[in-house]
């Protein structure tokens, strides 16, 4: 069931990335769209519109489905993580959507490498965090 909803949700994401490309001529990389909305004057309106749609979807989901969004991550860790994600995605030129979905879809070698690297360091981080911060057996 969870695999099926993953596949279905993923298909919607793939469709959305195509709609964004057709509408704006640009790749639907969320980190790039956010950075562009913050820093560039050109095409700012459509970037803000995409981000508004993203937040709006969350708003709709909260009303109709009360989605699970529980995270036990302590606030200082969230702050460090947020800074690393913002910084890293801009230095590396993309995130899970820009490199992971859009880049891999067109077999961009840079995106394949980027995705392999962030999955590897993400997995290493989770392994280290589990080892040092959580006792064995916690869910």
């Amino acid at each position, binding site marked *: 069931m969870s695999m099926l909803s993953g596949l279905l949700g993923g*298909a919607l994401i793939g469709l959305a990335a195509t709609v964004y490309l057709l509408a704006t001529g640009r790749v639907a990389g969320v980190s790039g769209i956010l950075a562009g909305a913050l820093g560039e004057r050109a095409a700012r309106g459509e970037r803000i519109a995409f981000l508004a749609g993203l937040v709006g979807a969350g708003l709709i989901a909260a009303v109709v489905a009360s989605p699970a969004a529980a995270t036990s991550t302590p606030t200082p860790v*969230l702050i460090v993580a947020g800074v690393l994600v913002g910084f890293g995605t801009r230095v590396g030129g993309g995130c899970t959507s820009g490199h992971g979905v859009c880049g891999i879809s*067109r077999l961009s070698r840079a995106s394949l490498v980027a995705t392999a690297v962030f999955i590897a360091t993400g997995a290493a981080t*989770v392994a280290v965090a589990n080892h040092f911060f959580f006792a064995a057996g916690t869910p």
Partner: protein
Amino acid sequence: MSRRTLGALFAGALFGIGLVVSGMTDPRNVIGFLDVAGRWNPRLAAVMAGAVGVHAALLGLLARAGGGRGARLLPRRDNRIDRSLIVGSAIFGVGWGLSGYCPGPAIASLGFGARSAYVFVAAMIVGILASALVPRRRSGCEAP
């Protein structure tokens, strides 16, 4: 509202619904995927397969549209592997693993009113602004 803006709004909403439906707005599913040494949760792999499958298929159709003329509308393949790509992606992965959030799900979660998402997104904006201080990769995202 222009058609471009309306299209972008619709794309963002569809993208966000996809993230919610697939469970990617729940950081536990992301951390579960990255927890390869523990109880591995494969859902993110299904999401990537669905997203890449559909997007690649539609890009293929677009490329063939108009007797091949559609191809020039598509973003170019980016094959430059440089230090910024590797270092930046490595740093991103650490933050992703610490929180279970990447930019898309974090921004969509603002709509839930999840406090953790607000904290994370505010910090992420600081990180984006700070990245202007170092050499950055010209975004492969901004094409063609």
